């Protein structure tokens, strides 16, 4: 994991001090609300429905046990005993007091964390594969590049007041677990035929009101040119992106207005012009960044597991759903689920944070990752420790064995907390989960993704879900639109709207009907929901949902 040096510490400390000054000026009336807005947003501070919300950056999802403990302390001292893991691997505190934010930032600084650029029209936290470094299908660990991008984009003087927010994701594996095609820039680390490392560069993806998949604009960018190329893309966007309409301000609109060919030509021209000025990344520098992400000291272990039938059924279910193969023999990747029925998806309590820190120290080299599915990953667990880990996690409600199923819902805080939301998302999830409380039934459906966003900002990324739900406001009433057929992973697709929106009480029954159509129509149990939908189209699903009752 990356460790701060003097420069990192100084940069973060300066920002903490600067922000405290800005907050003081705002509270004393010297700084207008309008002027404070971009300054506080660039420090992750939103003014929400009930209280301000502070979003803290978890760079590419990596957290140490000490950082988890610091988050726990903040939950306890400044919030209401819990926080929320976001779909971009960050953490949100939903109940902080405005005047306490500088103190929270100072707490974070002590454990090498910050809230820099977690919102606002700037380059946001870079996200990545939550299984980076341990996945079996990985070509190259993307995290060294993420760290280089984190630093390059932090307090970048030219790109702090962009037309709109700007998100970058980097992967280095075959399966795309970071949804790079839904980002403003998506990077995939690849090797050229000559063995040189570089990137496939995708640009212009995004969700929100106009969901779009990113276009491939460079098939191979040698790694040394990474920052120059990012700068070229950002500069074209900063100059030509629209600022007259916030709904048309993302880079995806510019890419689609110009056409990806023309956009690419502009980027390439800008890149070439600056070719001789922009400093390039040296091999030594990349090697240095890579040194922070070298493999921990794995033991040489057999990959054989003991027979599991002697263990409780719940443990067996957990092994099947929440534990994945690891690239190193004798190790497994464990997902600690934050989808227990008693908690909102992605919420995590002070006690759970502290407990996970202990588990990480005991079983996984003191590190964890946050995931885009709003869970926590322990990446390096010995097979021989799995049962103990399960036993110790179970009382803290961290072993819900539903990863990748319909019950592993991704959900934004919605209208219950968020000032932007048009509708609540949590009660929708509760209603659905009540219908699918039978694990056997859930397992029978196989891998299926359900995502619920409370508004068109699409924080839950409902567009890429097999089943997506979007809250909308119809003359003051909460309504919900269903989209089907989205996907991410080996392939990306944006879901299509099924039909007219429905009121809250009709959503869970509608989802039930959709599932019934799938179960009745699938070729066999191995055919996923996604495949069945692709084969049948939306017709039968639409008919089932709208035919009689609606």
């Amino acid at each position, binding site marked *: 994991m990356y460790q701060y040096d003097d420069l990192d510490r*100084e*940069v973060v400390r300066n920002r903490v*001090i*600067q922000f405290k000054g800005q907050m003081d000026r705002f509270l004393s009336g010297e700084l207008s609300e309008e*002027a404070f807005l971009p300054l506080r947003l660039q420090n992750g501070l939103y003014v929400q429905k009930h209280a301000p919300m502070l979003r803290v950056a978890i760079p590419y999802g990596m957290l140490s046990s000490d950082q988890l403990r610091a988050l726990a302390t903040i939950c306890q001292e400044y919030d209401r005993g819990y926080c929320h893991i976001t779909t971009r691997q960050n953490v949100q505190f939903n109940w902080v007091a405005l005047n306490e934010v500088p103190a929270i930032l*100072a*707490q974070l600084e002590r454990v090498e964390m910050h809230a820099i650029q977690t919102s606002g029209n700037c380059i946001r936290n870079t996200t990545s594969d939550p299984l980076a470094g341990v996945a079996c299908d990985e070509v190259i660990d993307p995290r060294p590049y993420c760290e280089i991008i984190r630093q390059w984009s932090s307090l970048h003087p030219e790109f702090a007041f962009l037309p709109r927010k700007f998100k970058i994701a980097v992967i280095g594996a075959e399966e795309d677990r970071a949804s790079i095609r839904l980002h403003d820039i998506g990077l995939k680390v690849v090797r050229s035929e000559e063995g040189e490392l570089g990137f496939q560069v995708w640009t212009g993806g995004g969700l929100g009101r106009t969901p779009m998949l990113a276009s491939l604009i460079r098939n191979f960018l040698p790694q040394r040119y990474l920052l120059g190329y990012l700068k070229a893309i950002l500069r074209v966007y900063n100059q030509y992106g629209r600022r007259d309409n916030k709904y048309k301000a993302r880079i995806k609109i510019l890419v689609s207005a110009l056409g990806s060919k023309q956009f690419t030509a502009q980027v390439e021209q800008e890149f070439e012009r600056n070719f001789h000025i922009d400093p*390039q990344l040296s091999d030594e520098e990349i090697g*240095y960044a890579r040194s922070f992400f070298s493999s921990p000291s794995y033991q040489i272990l057999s990959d054989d597991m003991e027979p599991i039938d002697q263990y409780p059924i719940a443990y067996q279910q957990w092994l099947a759903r929440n534990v994945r193969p690891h690239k190193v023999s004798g190790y497994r990747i464990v997902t600690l689920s934050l989808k227990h029925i008693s908690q909102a998806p992605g919420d995590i309590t002070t006690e759970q944070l502290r407990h996970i820190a202990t588990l990480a120290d005991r079983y996984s080299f003191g590190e964890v990752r946050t995931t885009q599915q709003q869970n926590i990953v322990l990446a390096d667990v010995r097979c021989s420790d799995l049962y103990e880990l399960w036993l110790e996690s179970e009382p803290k409600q961290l072993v819900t064995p539903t990863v990748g199923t319909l019950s592993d819902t991704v959900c934004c805080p919605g209208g219950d907390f968020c000032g932007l939301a048009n509708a609540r998302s949590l009660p929708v999830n509760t209603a659905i989960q009540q219908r699918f409380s039978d694990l056997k039934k859930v397992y029978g459906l196989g891998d299926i993704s359900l995502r619920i966003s409370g508004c068109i900002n699409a924080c839950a990324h409902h567009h890429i879900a097999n089943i997506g739900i979007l809250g909308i406001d119809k003359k003051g009433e909460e309504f919900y639109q269903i989209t089907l057929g989205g996907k991410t992973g080996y392939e990306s697709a944006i879901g299509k709207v099924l039909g007219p929106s429905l009121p809250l009480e009709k959503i869970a029954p509608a989802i039930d009907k959709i599932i019934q159509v799938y179960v009745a129509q699938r070729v066999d149990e191995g055919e996923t929901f996604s495949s069945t939908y692709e084969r049948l189209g939306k017709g039968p699903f639409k008919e089932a949902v709208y035919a009689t009752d609606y």
Partner: protein
Amino acid sequence: MPQIIKKGRVVNDDWHIVAEELAILDDEAGRSSFVPKHGDKYLLPAPLWNTFFPQFLGFSTLPGLLLDHQVELEDINVAVSLVPIIAIRFSSFMDGTGFSTGALLRERFSFSGELRACGAILPDQVNYLMRCGFDSVAFNDPHSVTQYEKIQGQAVEQPKAVATDELINNTRNSPRNASLSYQGDVSRPKTPFQRRFGC
């Protein structure tokens, strides 16, 4: 005389912005109401610069260019190569186009004169502007000069404990070196890890 920020200091400034509407008001004889005076310093909006430039031949000080932040620099590259100062007008502090325009003038057009940001700019943006190659900032809001001085003061004065929070009071209250950065600036760009490890 208005005050501006130049190279980190508050100074008086004598560059006059010539309003577009003033200069194009022709009288009955077809003369423009704008007649440049020897010794005065003018900033002309780009569309007027070409028109009035000949009137300055023989003057000791050529007029500077006042650019809209969204200007296409390719269209005015001749003027850029001649003027002593270019001012870029920011229409809103939320609109950061001017940051790129400034950086481009330095990088691609090798502009070496004074680069100024003027208009709707927050004092908190000055540091970023300087790192993008700007030398001076003329705020719309006169209070911004005082605010800027205050922010800068924090950077040099010893901390004044005003916070309720002990944690913050115990740490330094002023950025020791606010210019420290990962990217360097337009005149000295760097990669983040450059010079940070022993090899």
